[in-house]
């Protein structure tokens, strides 16, 4: 089962990858949300974005994912179509699908197909039971959050953009995120996370707003 092994492969990311922002600004309509934001991230490093509500943490992540154009400044980042995972506030989950069907779609978007045992393994690793029959609509907020983490495991991409990764998660769930993040950094990945909490895996912080 060569394809199934793919799911747990400990892939090494390129050590040359960088993610850099120079004098980045973000505008929402006529309002400048932030400006003059600069940082640089090398392989194996993690950055935590901090700032009050409305300071533009999520907007910065969307800019890094290529979903929102930068109002000024330059961004250097991996090609989003191949190199970026973006876990935003909306989970992109479908209530009428089962966990296994959701994972099968994740696998297909990553370009491969696996069998139900492999999906059950992943669900178990994320602390989710009833892979074959449990509908996503019946999961709790924390369980849905766990299910979105499957994308990070199933499709190895160098840059992870995580918006409030600890939201709704219990202690075990937070430990799971930290474990996944540390393994990702060890294999040469990069993480940029927006959070109000202390993230154990973050090497540096960028404080957004208030505007000067």
């Amino acid at each position, binding site marked *: 089962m060569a394809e199934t092994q793919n799911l747990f492969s400990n892939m090494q990311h390129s050590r040359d990858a960088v993610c850099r922002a120079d004098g980045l600004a973000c505008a929402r309509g006529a309002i400048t949300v932030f400006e003059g934001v600069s940082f640089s991230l090398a392989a194996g490093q993690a950055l935590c974005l901090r700032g009050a509500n409305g300071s533009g943490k999520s907007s910065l992540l969307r800019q890094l994912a290529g979903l929102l154009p930068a109002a000024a400044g330059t961004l250097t980042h991996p090609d989003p179509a191949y190199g970026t995972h973006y876990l935003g506030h909306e989970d*992109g989950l479908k209530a009428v*699908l089962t966990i296994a069907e959701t994972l099968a779609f994740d696998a297909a978007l990553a370009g491969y197909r696996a069998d139900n045992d492999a999906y059950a393994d992943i669900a178990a690793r994320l602390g989710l039971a009833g892979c074959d029959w449990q509908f996503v609509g019946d999961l709790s907020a924390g369980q849905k959050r766990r299910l979105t983490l499957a994308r990070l495991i199933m499709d190895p991409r160098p840059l992870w953009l995580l918006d409030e990764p600890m939201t709704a998660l219990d202690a075990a769930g937070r430990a799971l995120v930290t474990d996944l993040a540390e393994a990702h950094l060890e294999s040469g990945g990069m993480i940029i996370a927006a959070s109000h909490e202390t993230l154990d895996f973050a090497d540096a912080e960028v404080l957004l707003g208030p505007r000067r």
Partner: protein
Amino acid sequence: MRIFAAICSQHMHLSWRSGQTMLAVSFLFIAITLLPFGLGPELNLLRALAPGLLWVVLAISLLTGLERLFQADYEDGTLDRLLLVPLAFEAVVLAKLLGHYLALVLPLILAVPLAGLLLNIEAARLPVLLAAMLCGSPALVLLGGIGASLAVSVRRGGLLTVLIAMPFYVPVLIFGAAAARAGLETGVAVGPYLGILAALSAASLLLAPFAIAAALRSALR
């Protein structure tokens, strides 16, 4: 290609499981059943009006399904995700439209002969009507998709979708009904009408994915 197939089949799967397909087909039947109550039970009148009525009801049932074509994905964040797959976003859009067509529009067209029975339509007229619908319906879906993508960020934007898409439906309905009429009369060629319908569909197929992708991209900003 695997990603294209996955997006297409997931859309069909969701459409079927959330009851969209059954809902649209039931809507078509209810609307057709109601018509004789409004028009009176004269068989000749119903028969004469049937092709045009079936076209209009098909267009309306199709539009009711279009509201959720991109909106569900927009609201739950799936569209963000589909922008980050190694496939051109225009192709992603096309995959969703194909899924929508197979899951919703094809069942509607297949239900038309049965609905035609209720309007006392002759069996001889059905093949031409069906051929016209098969030629013209891709244009209806693709043009409606433009409306749906422009209204995607509006909550309860279904009516707005209809308002945007309806004017574009006029040529398809004109030639669709004309094809059905021509099929009835001897000596009138049906081919040119079907050709024009197919041309409308082909032109929409070429242009709509780009328009829809652009509209969705700007909505996601």
